[in-house]
């Protein structure tokens, strides 16, 4: 009885989501398309929100807040990055090869030249099939559907677009990617960590109040509360999924120093892991009223031979209303409340081989 109620509730919620917002992506339940061949980007992680479909309006400069800093409040569509490096073919391809998928998968509009997402209609007919319909982008990966597009290198330094791992660290990353995807953090409803918080699925809302820059992701209801007062970091013994971000303004750019992350999150869903030594310098650069350029420079001598920098754009989601005429809003994303994604890796549900959970990373 209880289980039945739970099912009904969740179905109702999912249907509501599918009807109300033009949002096809739902990687939570997405089949792991990437298991066999190329890293498929988790299938359903594609799909731009409605904002990706609108022709770009001429955008002036970012407005200003009462304190004179840029007003970056509003809704933004991060690119859903499933591999921060140009993806090499899975299963034997040596890293460093060509960009098999044209660079890390990107949600529509997120990348320079990114194709507009045609995801909206896929989310229309919900009905009893709500969750699958809402999954839209879960169709076979490989291109336009859901807004995946050639994105170019995410990593702008070094020039080859690849993470400058030590050989040992590269071997560990490859092992995670090829043999331990059942331990992929978001599969377990972990928060995304940084910088993946800026490139996970679905939308992002920014709120600014005196002394704070706050990001609330729809995905996994992840929050980043960034004080902008340049305060000292918390004790290094405290380890957090989202780390300890401390911001300050340099002109119109918000610079964020992020430390204290734990080692339970990845940079993406492709085994790019972290150590506790990771120190990230992030920049939120307001390019124009509809675009924030996001940059992150990673420093961790324990696994990298040099610092490396990735960047991508956060395009504004200009969707004003949902399909019922209601002002656009982020929905509530339950994850652990009904997670069945693990089964994609531990059972014969699209995966090629069954994996055992809990392998030590």
């Amino acid at each position, binding site marked *: 009885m209880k289980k039945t109620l739970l*099912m009904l509730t969740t179905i109702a919620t999912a249907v509501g989501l599918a009807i109300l917002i033009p949002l096809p992506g739902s990687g939570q339940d997405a089949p792991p398309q990437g298991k066999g061949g190329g890293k498929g980007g988790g299938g359903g992680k594609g799909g731009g929100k409605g904002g990706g479909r609108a022709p770009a309006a001429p955008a002036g400069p970012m407005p200003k807040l009462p304190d004179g800093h840029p007003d970056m409040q509003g809704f933004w569509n991060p690119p859903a990055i499933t591999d921060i490096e140009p993806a090499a073919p899975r299963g034997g391809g040596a890293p460093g090869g060509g960009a098999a998928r044209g660079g890390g998968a990107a949600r529509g509009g997120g990348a320079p030249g990114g194709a507009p997402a045609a995801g909206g209609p896929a989310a229309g007919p919900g009905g009893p099939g709500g969750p699958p319909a809402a999954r839209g982008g879960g169709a076979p990966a490989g291109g336009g559907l859901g807004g995946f597009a050639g994105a170019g290198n995410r990593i702008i330094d070094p020039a080859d677009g690849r993470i400058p791992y030590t050989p040992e660290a590269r071997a560990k990353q490859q092992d995670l990617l090829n043999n331990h995807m059942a331990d992929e953090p978001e599969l377990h409803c972990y928060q995304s960590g940084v910088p993946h918080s800026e490139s996970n699925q679905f939308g992002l809302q920014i709120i600014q109040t005196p002394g704070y820059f706050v990001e609330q992701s729809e995905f996994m209801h992840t929050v980043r509360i960034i004080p902008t007062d340049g305060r000292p970091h918390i004790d290094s013994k405290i380890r957090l999924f989202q780390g300890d971000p401390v911001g300050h303004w340099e002109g119109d750019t918000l610079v964020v120093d992020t430390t204290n992350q734990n080692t339970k999150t990845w940079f993406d869903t492709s085994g790019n892991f972290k150590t506790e030594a990771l120190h990230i310098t992030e920049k939120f650069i307001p390019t124009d009223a509809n675009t924030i350029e996001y940059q992150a420079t990673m420093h961790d001598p324990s696994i990298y031979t040099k610092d490396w920098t990735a960047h991508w754009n956060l395009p504004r989601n200009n969707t004003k209303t949902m399909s019922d005429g209601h002002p656009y809003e982020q929905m509530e994303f339950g994850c652990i409340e009904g997670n069945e994604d693990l*089964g994609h890796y531990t059972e014969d549900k699209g995966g090629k081989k069954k994996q055992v959970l809990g392998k030590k990373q």
Partner: protein
Amino acid sequence: MRIRFAARLKMIAPFALAAPLALMSVATGPAFGQAKSSFTAPKNAWEGHADLSGIWQAKTTAGDDVDKLVVDPPNKKIPYLPAAVAQMKANAKNKAGDSTAKCWMPGVPRLMYMNKPFQIFQTAKYIMVDSEYAHVYRQIFMDGSGHLDGVQFWDGDSRGKWEGDTLVVDVTGFNDQTWFDKAGNYHSDQLHVVERYTRTGPDTLTYEATITDPKVFSKPWTIRVPLMLNKAPNARIMEYECQELAPLSASEAQKK
């Protein structure tokens, strides 16, 4: 169409990383009746209304049993319908049925008195409540928009307005999967909560919630609890992440 759930978790081990918060003096809650105060609330610098921003926490164990917060009816008993008492008693014997025992969202108003700090961010269109508990956040829409029709939320659909210096939030659109506490006090999907947030002092705020649910209660009832402001320099909320250590996949759980 099948949806399966990991209905039984082998092990639940919430791991908490909560920095010690500065101990603050516990203010006494106001007496019965509407929260009234001669205190003039400071104004929010950008938004202009009474300033509710900051890190707040209810220093109470009401998350174990919400009974202790009831201020109306006068006998301080939750006015269950006779037919609902049996379910409440059954819940009390089934602690694992509590949504927070499964690391699920706690619902509203429980999120506000479950003894985890939360930070309020206040703007003209949105008031955000970001909790330390399982990084749950609430969005209180202040743009005059109405409730969404036909959508259920774990933490409800919150629409707020100002009545003088008091923030009044109308919350509907709940599912029936959360309890008010660990003791099994529960509600149906007909739950309707009206919250009132009133600053009562430099470090305090009175939180009131009137709870209506015609499927479970014979009449509305009201809880009240003081919230304490964390004024420690550089205070921040931490992460109270709640995860099962050895999750079962959906079908594995079904076989148990």
